Structures are given as C-alpha cells and as structure tokens.
C-alpha cells in the first residue's frame, strides 16, 4: 500500500471528516441526555451513562443450572429478594445459563441469592460465578477512577506540552483529538446502552495514550516537512505529511485491531466487553489522527492568519497599540502561507549548514543545475537534470550553493544576511512571492 502516491487531497475532506465525528459525538451526547431524563424524576446526570457494578455497587451473577429453565422462572424466584434494577439474560443456548445483574449488593451475604436460585433448579456452583461490590465501595472506586482519568490526562498534557511546547497549535490539536476519542467512546457506549465499568476505564486510558502517540507521529512529520518543504504552501505540506505517514498509521492500527478482533471473536463475555471498548476507541483514534488532527492544524493556522490580518487592518486604522512588529509579522505570516518564521529560519540555517559542509567536505562535486526559466518569481528557477523538475531555489541557497550567476541574472544582489538577527522584510518579500507560485 503506497498511500503517498495517491492523489488524495485529504485536507480538503476536513469538513466531511469533522462532521462525521461530530455527528457521532452529538448522537452519543443526545442519547446521554435522553438517558438522563429516563426514570421519571426529571434530568439526572447520574443516569446519563450506565455505570458498571464496580462503580455503582451491585451484584453480577453468572449462574449455571443443572437442568434447563427459563428467564421468567429465574425472575420469579428472585422476586422475593427485593432486588433493585435487576435484569436476567440468558447465556448460552441450552437454557441452563443465565446472567443476573442487580444494583443490590450481595457482597456480605450471598446465601439468600443462591437459596432463591436453588428453588428454580439445582445450581452448579462450580460453573457459576458471583461478583459483588458494596455500594459505598462502588462510589469510592468511581472517585478513584475519575482521579485516574485526571492524573493520566494531566501527565499526557504535560508530555504534549514537552513535545510541542514551542507550538501551541500542535498541542491544542493533540488535546482536541484526545478529547474527541474519549468522547467517541463514551458516546458509543451511551448509544449502545452498555455499562461503563472498570474495564471501560482501562480502555479509555489505553486509548488516550494511543491517540496521543498517533497524533504526535503525524504532527512530527508536519514539523519535519515544514523544514524540508519550506517553500511549499502549508496545505501541501500537511497533505504530504498525512500521505507519508498513512501506511504507518494503517499498519499500526491493523496490528492492534487484529488482536482486538481475535479477543472479540473468541474471548469470554468479559473480554468481549473490554475488546469492544478498545476497538471503538482505537479505530476512532486512527480516524482522528489521520483525517482530523493534521487538517485541523491547517485550520488553526488559517485562523491564526485571519486574526493576524484583521489585527493588521485594524492596526493600520485607528488602533495604534498594535506594534509594528506584530503588524509586520501578520503580513509575513500571511504571505508565507502560514509557515511560521521560526521554521523558515530553522530550515534556512539547516540548509546553509548542509551547503557549508557539502562545500567543505566534497568541493569537487559541482551542483549540476541549469537555468530554465526566469519567471519563477522570488527564487532562482532551476531544473533538476535528473528529473526535469523545475524548482525555485531560495536566492540565499543559490548563493550558498554557488549559483551566484543564476541569482545575479535574475537581478538578485548578493545578500549578506545575519541570520541570527532575522531580517523581517526580506522574508516578507521572498515568501510572499513564493505563494503566488502555482
């Protein structure tokens, strides 16, 4: 699979992609609100998501009778126990297995439950199980679960800040993707009316980690390509980055999904529940990091630009508080297609370094460029002898690479720049012209 050869404009799908994921989340939220109103006592937040017995307290029994019976008979036998919110479902096809769930906790004394069940048919205790959590312990576990979530999120945020500290957009996008993945999981659980138990918590924590790493890998590639493709418009950079990392994203997704599907297909009931939660989260994580996060970076960059432009217009008008620096920055940012100045400086420095080492190490190999067209504005138009591609070389690079003649021909003078004190108007000019390039 060679996704990078596909001619897909993934960033162009952003609207559809974000609509789909927003729709799922909205549906989930809607069903949570709907559940909140169930029960007849007005809106109750506690009813929004059905919690598992480890968080509410209660009893979960898998019972195996020695002869077949029906769920109704089991229900009747339990009627005298005064259970709250009980449910009886059949397990297996021979009519001997049932799963009983109730919010009444039989932790301290389960004898009444077994006695009642024994009146239906003799219970095979060796093939039955009971899990019970007292109500106050359930509340305690719920609080601990929320703490676990908060601490894990906190550490992930710190890690994101550490990785992208210099770039708040990347950090913000990673956090948004993470929150969306968690929201997807909760939403689909609410839609499916499944119980969110401690296995669900484990799944959410795992998915959050997965989502963060998945997003980081793609954003890292954007960062890398911003330097490598410094001349290109930002949306091309983002699109290329997505396509380059897509195979990786799909394959890592595939390996995890394969194992989860195996668990879902062959695992027991409790494993199935867990595998389902993980599957939802990890597929959502993959979807978001490929189709959502990276285009979202572009979206934010555009917003940033528009804001800068607006500031500039206002600044040119009445508002004198805007500094010349921010005004010139906004113009520059716009003309550079959203590539931040730091990236260009870094890219320049890197290329300059490379050219320098290339010169010192292997001076014998001349760069075989020949001039093709003059109308590639802003840069020195050269054609790669091997591929025939026209490239606009930054005049500075041309200078460094010893292409002075080409630069002079286009009317560029030799530029003497102290790159440590970056000269604003210079970039403004060359980047601005680059943007007009098709």
């Amino acid at each position, binding site marked *: 699979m060679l996704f990078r050869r596909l001619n897909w404009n993934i960033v162009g799908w952003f609207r559809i992609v974000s609509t789909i994921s927003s729709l799922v989340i909205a549906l989930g939220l809607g069903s949570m609100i709907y559940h909140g109103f169930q029960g007849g006592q007005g809106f109750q937040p506690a009813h929004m998501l059905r919690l598992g017995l480890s968080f509410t307290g209660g009893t979960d029994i898998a019972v195996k009778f020695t002869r077949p019976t029906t769920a109704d008979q089991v229900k009747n036998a339990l009627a005298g126990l005064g259970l709250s919110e009980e449910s009886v479902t059949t397990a297996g096809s021979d009519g001997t297995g049932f799963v009983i769930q109730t919010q009444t906790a039989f932790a301290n004394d389960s004898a009444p439950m077994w006695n009642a069940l024994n009146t239906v048919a003799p219970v095979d205790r060796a093939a039955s199980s*009971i899990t019970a959590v007292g109500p106050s312990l359930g509340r305690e576990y719920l609080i601990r679960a929320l703490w676990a979530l908060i601490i894990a999120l906190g550490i992930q945020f710190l890690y994101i800040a550490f990785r992208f500290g210099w770039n708040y957009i990347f950090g913000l996008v990673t956090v948004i993707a993470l929150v969306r993945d968690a929201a997807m999981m909760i939403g689909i659980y609410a839609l499916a009316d499944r119980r969110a138990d401690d296995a669900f918590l484990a799944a959410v924590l795992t998915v959050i980690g997965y989502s963060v790493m998945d997003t980081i890998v793609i954003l890292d590639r954007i960062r890398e390509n911003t330097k490598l493709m410094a001349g290109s418009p930002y949306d091309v950079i983002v699109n290329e980055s997505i396509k*380059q990392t897509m195979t990786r994203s799909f394959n890592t997704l595939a390996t995890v999904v394969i194992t989860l599907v195996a668990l879902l297909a062959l695992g027991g009931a409790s494993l199935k529940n867990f595998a389902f939660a993980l599957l939802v989260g990890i597929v959502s994580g993959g979807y978001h990091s490929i189709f959502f996060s990276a285009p979202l970076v572009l979206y934010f960059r555009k917003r940033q630009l528009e804001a800068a432009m607006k500031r500039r217009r206002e600044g040119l008008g009445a508002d004198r508080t805007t500094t010349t620096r921010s005004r010139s920055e906004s113009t520059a940012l716009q003309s550079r297609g959203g590539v931040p100045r730091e990236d260009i400086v870094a890219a320049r420095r890197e290329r300059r370094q490379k050219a320098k080492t290339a010169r010192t190490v292997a001076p014998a190999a001349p760069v075989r460029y020949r001039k093709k067209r003059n109308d590639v504005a802003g840069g020195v138009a050269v054609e790669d002898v091997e591929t025939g591609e026209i490239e606009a070389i930054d005049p500075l690079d041309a200078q460094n690479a010893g292409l002075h003649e080409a630069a002079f021909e286009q009317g560029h003078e030799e530029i003497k720049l102290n790159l440590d004190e970056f000269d604003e108007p210079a970039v403004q000019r060359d980047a601005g012209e680059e943007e007009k390039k098709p």
Partner: protein
Amino acid sequence: MSWNNLKTPFKALVIIAVVALSIWSILPIAQKIHLGLDLQGGSRLLLQLYPTEEVPRITTQVQAQTREVIDRRINGLGVAEPSISNVGTDRILVELPNVKNPDEAERVLKEVAVLAYKIVPPDVAQKATAALTVIANPSLPAKDRAAAEAYVANGAYDASGPVVYSGKDLKAAQAGFDTSGQPNVLFQTKDPSRFGKLTTANIGKLLGIFLDHRFVEAPQIQGAIFDSGEIHGTFTEEQTVTLANELNAGALPVTTKIIEKETIGPTLGKIDLVQSLRASMLGLGLVLLFMIVVYRLPGLLADAALAIYVLIMMAVLALSHATLTLPGIAGFVLSIGMAVDANVLIFERIKEELWNGKSMRAAVRVGFQRAFSAVFDSHFTTIVGAGVLYMLGTGTVKGFAFTLFWGTVVSLFTAVFITRFFVDALVDNDVLTTPELYGIKQSEVGIFAKAGT
C-alpha cells in the same frame, strides 16, 4: 580489538543470556505461572473492618490482630494456597484459590464468633426454640420463617438478661458427639471457679447459649459445672467443627463485613482460560502473519523478536510472582499488538528512506534512528495510562495494567534492540541486500528521492 569489533558478539551474548534466563525461569510452566482466581476458580474477598464499642478505632495493630485470627480460621478450612493481605489500614484482602466451599469460607471471615451465656427467661426460651423449628421447616410460608429468623438472630438475645460468661473465657473447644450421636462442641473453661459459682447460683434456671447474638440453645442448669461443658443445638457435624475452630482461633477483635466479592467456579474459570488462550493464540498468529506479508524478511525478523518478547513476558510473570488473570491476558494480547507497532514505525521509516534513494545500509541505520522518537512516544504514552491504572485501578483491572505496563517496557527492548540486531546482522552479512526482501520493488527505490525532500 576495538569496541566496534566486539559490539556484535556482545549484543548476541546479551540476547542469548536473556532468552536462556527467560526459559530457565518459566519452566515448568504449570508451576511458575500462577493463574489468577478468575482462571482457576476461587474466591477473592475484601473485608472492611468496622470499629466496635470495645475497639473504637481501627489501627494497624487491630488490622494485624484481625489478620492473625483470619489466618488461623482459614487454615482451619484447609484451603491450599490462601493469600491474606492488608489493604489500606482498615481492609483485608483474602484470596482463596480453589476453595471447595466458598460459602463456608465467607461465613468464617465475618463471623465474630462471640459465644455468650445469658440467663434466659422461660418464655423467651420457649419462643426461641419454637422459632428454630419454624426455620427448620421449609414448607411454612416465607414470611413466618423470616419473623422466626429475626427472633432467633437478635430478638431472644435482646430479651434476655446480661452476659454472664463469654467465649473469651473458654480455654479450648473440640468438636465431638454426644451420647445419642448428635454432633456437639465440648469446651473447657479458663476459670473453673467462676463458671462453677455462676452455675451454682442459677441451678434450675435456663442458661442460654448465644453465638454472635444468635440463639443456639437454652439448657436447664442441672448442677454446678466447673471446668468443662458442651454445646449442642441443631448442628451438623461440619458446623461443630467450624464452631470449635472459631472458638479456638479466637474471636475477631472487630466487626467485619465483606464489601467486595468475586467467587468463580473452577469449571467456569477453566472455560475462560481456554477461551482467552485460544483468542490470544489467534491474535498472535494473525499479527505474525501480518508482519511477514507486509514486511517480508524484516517482518520475519520482527516475528522472531516477538517470540522472544512472549518468552520474556512470561518470565516477568513468573519472576514477579504475579498471577495471570483474565484482564491480564487481555493486556498481554494488546501489548503484542503494540510491540509490533514499534517495528511497523521503524520498517515504514526504512522503506521511506529506501524510496528516498538511500542505500540499504544507510536506510536501515537512519530508519532506526529517525523512528526512535515516535517509538518512544508510543511507549511513553501507553506506559502513562498503564501506570496510572496500576496505581489507582481496582481489583481485576490491576492485572491488565500490570501486563500492559511490563509488555510496553519489554517491547521497547525487543522491538528496538533485538530486531535491530537481527536486521543489522543480515545487512552486514549481505543477506538483506535487495529491497524486494523488504516488500518494495527495485523500481520503486528512489521514487521519492526528489518529491519529498
């Protein structure tokens, strides 16, 4: 010889040592890998200790005392490998693998076993004795039986006078049979003169025996009793053994209540074990296949590293004495998927470098280097989730967090160090020379030499 010459043999030695150590530590598997209660059947019970009038505060000392009593009682049950541990300062976790009678075990844990003697008024004794026969008769309506039960459990105790003698004053108890063959408990008193005085003063009256406030019987005091006596009621032989055991083990210093319970029948555990093992084998097999299909020869190398990974993980389980639970298997299976993630990251990067026109040797070197930050990201973010879950997670989820945590740590070693060693060895020995072995066509090499950079 320089370090560079020694590097490869040294790495090989490290890998061989790790593999040998792992195999040594997991054999024989059945003894070294401990299965959790959910896979072999058994009971896991969390006890909460509640303060009483005598012990108003639960201190660590009280917890230790309670643990000792529970320890003795559990030993009396004859459970194979019980595990009793403190949780916090006011809880005790009891794990009983393969317990034969879980109900009995539960009862033993919370029964305070306070034996109390009271002088019982004749009408109370009569009513309580009648109630006992009602309870014993299953054909009577449930409502009547419930009322009778309430009277036996508490009513009779409250209606009688003060406690005149208690179980604490008993020296030893023993289960036995009375002359008619009925099971009973024989006891010896610690303080014969006091018991003698008590019985002498109350000849002709009814001496009620209460176990945990529950009415057992109220025999008439026929004469003075000094050093030994017997308790009989409607006990089964088993019950007398338990009662004697409890009286000998001593009373629990505080009230206990089971607040969390997980009891799994052994047959059910076995079914779960077989199912989850089958699922993990399928998952593992599919992942191995996937890697070979997608990454060819390097994929095969990653698979070899994955096999070593499974070995090391089993060794971790064996050496840490952790038990393998059902969620633990889930964590293990998931970590298999994540272990190859690192290899996918690295191999994709190598492929890209090949597309960019690098030589095989350079592509491998640069691929491993450049992919490392992404590999580290994926491991770190997973470790955070697993670590937090291990610290704050509850009961069964801890097993998942444990295997996922260690799985991620170990996979950093196998996917990066071991796979790299394999790939390097093949490249250095000119085995892995053509890109075809990588699953990419010769014609594709260098196709992106200009496009990306």
